[in-house]
């Protein structure tokens, strides 16, 4: 079932950089959809459209629709705060907010008005467990999050998103700065998470794309070149450009 339907989405930034050109695709519920391709292809731009984070950036022109649960979220009437609670995002560089681990995890929940300590405690434990970091931090939840290693920080950032119980999780090269072991942990967490959430991942390598993708979309210079079942796309790509990229003929 399609959770998200992107229809003919085009976007151009004010400085003329990275843009999207007529992208249309459906994104499945409870699956990992991978958006990959060389830098500047529009993957991050697409992610930032899905939670309207692009509102913070100056945009020259945009067109098209994004339907989430059949509602066009690009509509001016969209409640962007509610949207961002429903569509969480993990960034390339882990950005722990300048507070404790626990405060980081409940930051969004508190903003949403949750005050009950029992609920907050529950959310902390649940989301840290889902992010495969609970055992490492359960005894020091009140330590500053910055004191953790990069890999741990990134999983706390993931937990911070999960705590809001979103429906969709966007991950923009979440493991680009991490060592292989931390990367493995994050990927394992994603496998668990897709049972409950719709996950859209911009991987940091083709290998990671192939490892994690249920569905994969190849982007080149703002255009969606090929979109298919992950296994098919990485073994028998239909487009020459996709094949060249997967084979490492250009990057």
């Amino acid at each position, binding site marked *: 079932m399609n959770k998200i339907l992107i229809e003919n989405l085009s976007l151009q930034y004010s400085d003329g950089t990275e843009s999207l050109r007529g992208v249309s695709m459906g994104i499945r519920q409870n699956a990992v959809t991978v958006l990959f391709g060389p830098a500047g292809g529009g993957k991050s731009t697409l992610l930032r459209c899905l*939670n309207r*984070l692009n509102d*913070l950036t100056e945009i020259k022109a945009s067109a098209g629709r994004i339907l989430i649960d059949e509602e066009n979220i690009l509509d001016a009437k969209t409640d962007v*705060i*509610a949207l*961002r*609670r429903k569509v*969480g*995002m993990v*960034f390339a*560089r882990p*950005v*722990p*907010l*300048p*507070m404790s681990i626990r405060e980081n995890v409940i*930051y*969004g929940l508190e*903003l*949403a008005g949750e005050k009950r300590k029992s609920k907050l405690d529950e959310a902390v434990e649940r989301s840290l467990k889902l992010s495969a970091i609970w055992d490492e931090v359960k005894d020091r939840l009140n330590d*500053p*999050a*910055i004191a953790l290693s990069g890999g741990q920080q990134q999983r706390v*950032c993931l937990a*911070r*998103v999960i705590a*809001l119980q979103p429906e969709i999780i966007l991950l923009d090269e979440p493991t680009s700065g991490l060592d292989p072991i931390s990367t493995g942990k994050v990927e394992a967490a994603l496998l668990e998470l897709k049972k409950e959430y719709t996950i859209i991942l911009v991987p940091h390598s083709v290998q990671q794309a192939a490892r994690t993708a249920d569905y994969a979309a190849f982007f080149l210079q703002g255009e969606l070149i090929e979109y298919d079942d992950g296994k098919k796309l990485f073994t028998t790509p239909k487009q020459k450009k996709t094949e060249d990229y997967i084979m490492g003929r250009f990057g």
Partner: protein
Amino acid sequence: MTKFLSRNRHTVQRIGFSLITLMAVLTVLPIVGTIIYILVQGGSAISWGFLSGFPHDGMRAGGILPAIIGTLYLTIGTAIFSVPLGIAAAVYLSEYAKDTQWTRLIRLAIINLAGIPSVVYGLFGLGLFVLFLQFGTSILAASLTLSIMTLPVIISTAEESLRAVPQAFRTVSISLGATRWQTIRKIVLKEALPGILTGVILGLERAAGETAPILFTGAAFFLPRLPQSPFDATMALPYHLFVISTQVPEMPIQIQYGTALVLLVFVLTMNLIATVIRSRARARRQW
């Protein structure tokens, strides 16, 4: 030949470093010299009676309590007006305003405001607050005048501290469903606070030590009692110092230096507080 050259180079380097060190030491001398000199000259004047008494015998004897209290009032009054206004302006410039002709004009105005001689502020305060708004020569008029003078310092340091907070914090906070205002309140202002406080204290410290802006707007030569309301004039340390140094014949020198010492301690204490806040915040900062 090469050996000679390399030795020569070492000598040049040593001379260079010595010169630079000398210059560095020279910059410290005036402040240390001033403090020591005033301490030596005025130290003997300091007593409980000096700090808590009124001046008498044409100010040639007695204490300086009304001047101390007056400077305290003026500093607080200045803070009341300049701190909220300055921080709000800085938040607007750093967090909300886009880079347009309009904001560039505001910034230009702030920079120029900082360059105006303080006596001009005094004259402006006289015209606007004392005469036009009819606040009279009063703590209110003097505080407002000092506030205008202090604003540029507060705005520019506050804006700088706000901008120093990493952009990623804002993006992350927004992505977690925070509004812009929540992000500013919970993250940005909190992180920038030590820097803002430092700027506030440095600005107020300058206001506390100024004579010219209060000369026409709120300072009194001598008052037999403490000010009762913001509409009263007040004595103040810097103006009192000016008065007893130039307007009163046969003034005992200890009282002059004693007054200078009190003013110096007042200002340096504020400076010290600012330094402590800054270094503590730096040690605790998580970015």
